[in-house]
């Protein structure tokens, strides 16, 4: 049986851990809120661009084409894997890694697959296991800014344009709520215009296009891709903070439980020690009386 002192030490160490997890939870909550605000901020911008692209590309008599929209036979695939830089956020990173592995096996049957890892966790995991890594980026989530998204977008787009890859897929966690993340596997390139949310309001045909539809489309698509990468990074960042918040909340609760169990145990042990002491004293006194 553990001595009283040992139990006391364990209680205080659990207490310290609890303080840390509590602080981490609160930090994650604050960061998550900021990340959420950023996601809301890009929505109008993304919707406008998407609506315009969809209209120019899909409607009207004449079809418009862009090299980024043409799909080629899939011989080389790039998986862009977005994980976090840090751990202690539940199954956030391991979910991504597990999905990436299964997607990797799926595509490897007919094509050559390479990885573009974003976040330290992915670089570490896939780096150790001899996966073909095309590029890696780590440490971008601390002080995340638009420039980083532009770099990634440029890398990916130029690789696609020069036919290094025929398909680019992003694997990332989408922010749903503080307690839930959606794991997404999205085809990034070739580019397909999404159905915009509210097109009924506008008829784009009566517009003057300056200089012309085709060149506007050509300029719009890279802009759209930039903002998509930015969105994915923000989503992943918010999801990470949400996951960490939940994980740390659970950890704090567990610590509380362990603490109360240990306290109970400690009190029982103290009681037992006192009882033994008393009975020893009583026993000793009895022995003295008899002699």
């Amino acid at each position: 049986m553990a001595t009283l002192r040992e139990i006391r030490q364990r209680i205080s160490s659990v207490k310290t851990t609890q303080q840390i997890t509590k602080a981490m939870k609160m930090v994650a909550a604050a960061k998550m809120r900021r990340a959420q605000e950023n996601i809301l901020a890009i929505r109008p911008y993304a919707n406008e661009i998407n609506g315009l692209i969809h209209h120019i590309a899909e409607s009207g008599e004449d079809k418009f084409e862009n090299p980024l929209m043409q799909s080629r036979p899939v011989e080389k695939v790039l998986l862009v894997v977005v994980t976090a830089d840090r751990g202690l956020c539940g199954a956030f990173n391991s979910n991504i890694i597990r999905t990436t592995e299964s997607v990797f096996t799926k595509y490897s049957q007919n094509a050559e697959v390479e990885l573009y890892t974003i976040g330290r966790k992915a670089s570490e995991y896939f780096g150790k296991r001899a996966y073909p890594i095309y590029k890696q980026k780590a440490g971008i989530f601390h002080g995340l800014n638009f420039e980083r998204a532009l770099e990634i977008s440029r890398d990916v787009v130029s690789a696609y344009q020069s036919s290094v890859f025929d398909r680019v897929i992003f694997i990332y966690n989408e922010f749903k709520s503080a307690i839930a993340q959606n794991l997404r596997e999205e085809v990034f390139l070739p580019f397909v215009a999404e159905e915009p949310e509210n097109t009924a309001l506008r008829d784009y045909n009566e517009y003057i296009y300056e200089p012309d539809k085709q060149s506007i489309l050509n300029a719009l698509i890279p802009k759209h891709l930039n903002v998509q990468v930015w969105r994915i990074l923000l989503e992943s960042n918010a999801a990470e903070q949400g996951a960490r918040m939940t994980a740390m909340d659970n950890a704090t609760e567990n610590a509380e439980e362990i603490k109360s169990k240990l306290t109970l145990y400690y009190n029982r042990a103290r009681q037992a020690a006192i009882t033994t002491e008393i009975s020893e004293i009583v026993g000793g006194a009895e022995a003295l009386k008899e002699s």
Partner: protein
Amino acid sequence: MNETLHLEIVTPFGTVLDEPVQSCMLPGEQGAFQVLKNHASLVSNVDIGLIKVERESKNELFATSGGFCEVKDNVIRIIVESAEKAESIDAYRAQQAKERAEQRLQEDKSKVDAHRAELALKRAVNRLKAVEVIKKDH
């Protein structure tokens, strides 16, 4: 149709401006143009340059790094990757960015890098210009 001309500037970081104006000068790809009330519907590229907003009370100047604009029913929607108010531009930082870009252009390794440096230079010069223009006005 709206009674007044309304201007919205939308960037990936949120809406910068959303209010009625008198006119707006935009840096189009083929030269600057001005949008007044009852302008025809238009979709145009916006180049790196200055956006001049005219209002009854006060004029405003923004430095933009390019994007698109859409004019319809007296609503101007400017969709750009950045729009900085001239007053809030840090002239010192813009100057440094300019020097960095110039240096990179001189080293000039590959075509892609040179193109990127050129764009960075253009943006920095544009921001400096914005700072100068408002200095003159005051």
